[in-house]
């Protein structure tokens, strides 16, 4: 191989540059970062099991939306027997009233941009 030294050094430099974000985050101690959410102080349990909500809240909200808007069913019967109005603004955000410290924390971390709040109103917007 001609110029083996140059090529190998070049490859090593290339690898270092391309993996730089990984090294950087490990060096800065961000590798184990997990968003710390602010949970509502006065509510004990969400409408369903926390693990289920964490993984599938978007499916639940989609189901709620379809049931309320298209079928006119407005009451959610939680697995533990409680009843809730199916409403993002009037049920979810009554407890989780800090969108920035709850919804946005995870959504930003995962780089997802749900358009719920294009129309639905977050509690903060109501403060004049």
């Amino acid at each position, binding site marked *: 191989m001609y110029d083996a030294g140059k090529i190998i050094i070049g490859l090593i430099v290339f690898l270092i540059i391309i993996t730089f974000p990984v090294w950087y985050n490990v060096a800065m101690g961000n590798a184990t970062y997990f968003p710390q959410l602010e949970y509502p102080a006065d509510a004990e349990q969400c409408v369903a099991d926390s693990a289920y909500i964490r993984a599938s809240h978007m499916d639940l909200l989609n189901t709620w*939306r379809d049931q309320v*808007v*298209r079928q*006119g069913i*407005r*009451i959610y019967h939680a697995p533990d027997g409680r009843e809730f*109005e199916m*409403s993002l*603004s*009037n049920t979810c955000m009554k407890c989780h009233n800090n969108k920035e410290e709850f919804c946005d924390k995870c959504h930003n971390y995962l780089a997802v941009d749900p*358009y719920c709040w*294009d*129309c*639905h*109103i977050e*509690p903060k*917007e*109501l403060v004049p």
Partner: protein
Amino acid sequence: MKIDRRKFIKFTGLTTVGLAGTPIVRALTGEDSLLTPAKPAPSLDNPLTAKRWAMVIDLRKCISKEGCTACIDACHLTHNVPDFGNPKDEVKWIWKESFEHAFQEQEHEYIDEKLKNAPTLVFCNHCDNPPCVRVCPTQATWKREKDGVVMMDWHRCIGCRYCVVACPYGSRSFNWRNPRPFIKKLQPDFPTRSRGVVEKCTFCEERLARGLMPACVEACPEKALVFGDLENPESEVRELLKNNYTIRRKPALGTQPEIYYII
């Protein structure tokens, strides 16, 4: 005791501050209801139901109160309807149209002077045979089978505006711009719309679900708007239809509008 001018002014000043301070202290300590108490949300247990919702508008009563916009204001406030301030972008759920425009078939040269220029209240007719529903490619608008309300699903609207073209009553408005900044007072329990979505009157289906009459009916000071079940022979709307001559907008089109006018 002798009071000089200096003492007198000090004394009156302190008294004024004391009087003004009381309500502030009360509000802060939560002793008094100077801060408006939160209204309890009406429950979902007793919804208003019907087989066929319809409305009768007594135009005589409506016209008699000149310049009244109570129903329009109530509706637009309740539903976060934006006010863009120009007719090109206008979004409206309920508005006033001159009689000869609202009822083109009824218009003639020698029409009753009172009616000729009468501002006539118009909004979505919640047709039995709604042309907007036929043309919607995503079924974002549909007629609810259980009570005949022509519904809107703003999640599903793609903004093609076929329905705006199909509606012969001009009841549908399109959001050409983001409506959020143009809403004067946000109502938290009702969503706004986003840019590129069509909106219209929904007969206040979210209020019916809570057992409340539509906002316009509740707001009318003349009780000129009557809302009720067309299929129920005992209902107030049927009573009015039986005892008065009523007309509908553009009946010849076969859309079967469900807003009736007593003229």
